[in-house]
């Protein structure tokens, strides 16, 4: 799927669709989403106070595992484990997790890419083997919610959303949510998937 290969906005008054498309484009570019979204379709019926949005996400990045971006060795002289981190971008999250586990006083960072932990090698290795430092999918999920709230007309505070394996369905209104609308949004999603489903 190419980035933004389908971008459709439908409104009751066709001339208003272009204006709303421009708002969505601004929001997408502001949240740096253009490479993440594959297809998007929005339907707005102001007379029903209804806003529907379905999005197909492109395949995201895999989670970053601590074991894959670092090496550990034991410094016998000072009785501590020295972790050398190869992926500099993830160091803040890495440190956070180590502090959480071993306590702030036991984890220090003497150099940019070196972290020292006052513990034994086996414990640290075991912890690092299971540690996921950063999950790009999770941040995408958070930003997707942010995008949906920004894109919806402000008064539409009754919301339904679902995200299932890269398929995002969002319905918002200022009135009580109706099952018909959710069903309609799911039909929109099917249409958007087209041949790929």
């Amino acid at each position: 799927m190419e980035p933004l290969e389908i971008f459709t906005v439908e409104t009751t008054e066709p001339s208003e669709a272009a204006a709303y498309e421009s708002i969505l484009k601004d929001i997408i570019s502001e949240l740096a989403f253009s490479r993440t979204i594959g297809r998007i379709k929005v339907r707005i019926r102001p007379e029903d106070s209804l806003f529907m949005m379905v999005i197909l996400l492109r395949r995201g990045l895999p989670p970053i595992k601590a074991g894959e971006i670092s090496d550990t060795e034991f410094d016998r002289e000072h009785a501590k484990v020295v972790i050398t981190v190869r992926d500099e971008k993830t160091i803040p999250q890495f440190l956070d997790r180590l502090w959480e586990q071993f306590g702030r006083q036991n984890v220090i960072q003497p150099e940019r890419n070196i972290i020292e932990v006052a513990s034994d090698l086996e414990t640290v290795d075991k912890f690092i083997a299971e540690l996921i430092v950063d999950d790009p999918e999770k941040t995408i999920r958070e930003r997707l919610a942010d995008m949906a709230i920004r894109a919806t007309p402000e008064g539409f505070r009754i919301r339904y959303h679902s995200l299932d394996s890269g398929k995002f369905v969002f319905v918002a209104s200022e009135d009580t949510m109706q099952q018909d609308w959710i069903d309609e949004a799911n039909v929109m999603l099917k249409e958007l998937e087209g041949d790929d489903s």
Partner: protein
Amino acid sequence: MAAVLEPYIYEGGIHKHSLILELLEDLGGYLVQKTSASTEVTLVMLIPKKDVHLVEDLCKKLLGKLTSAPLTGTEVAVVSPTLASHHLPHSACDIAEYLRRGGANTNMIGLARGMGRRVALSADYERRLINEHDVAVFSFGTFKDCIINKKPKLFEGIEIPIVVTGGPNIRTEEISGADIYVGGIGRIAHRMRKGSELDAMDVLNEKVGEIVNLKRENIAKDPLAVLPARLMKEVQEQVPDILNVLTPAPITLQLDGMRIKLPYDRYHEAVGNIEFDEGFLLSDAANILPSKMKDYILVKIKRRSEVVNI
């Protein structure tokens, strides 16, 4: 007969700008607002019509720019349904900025519960605050149905002229309660800088100018007991504490009065006791009221027909 005053904005270097102020004083004009930013200065002035060319010549000499500012001396409320990111900073702030370029003083007012369709409403306090201004500009969104059918309930209780902006092209008559509608300025998520957007803003300034002129003509039929600009000068001379106020416009002129940004409790008597050469006090010629904005003083000048002994 008082001289006819024309509003202008001077933009130029701060060097020797006091020459303009001296000339303005000699000619009997008024300085409405002075804003200096590092080496630049912006002067909003009222210049006697027949002497404009003198000021123009001096401005040219100082390599500054003098432009006509038809909205000078007006206070405009730019009202957006809420203060959320859906409405601000674009387009409501862009509208306010553009109106300020025309010389107006603008106040942004975000309603507490103005969003949505069925649920939109305004509070009594908000309506009274809006009514303190000369003109209210309501900045609405993209959908015709909302602007025509749902949003006009926000105009209830607004007694000043109402200008509505929105995305679609609608005739003013379709929106009940609106005095003028300007299209092409709907909900937008970027700074307005495209040609069509700026054109729409020009139209907005023009239309607000028309409404202001109508109001001015209306006032001219039964003129004010004292010109707001003259009163401003008297306030500066007789209530010197105003010179210590740090807001950008300590005295904000309105078509029929002004907002003085001093606490009402401590200063309303001093303001009421302002004396004029003709021998009357301001309290005889104006209503001095507590403003809904902070604890400021709102002065609404009476008409000549209301004050018999002046």
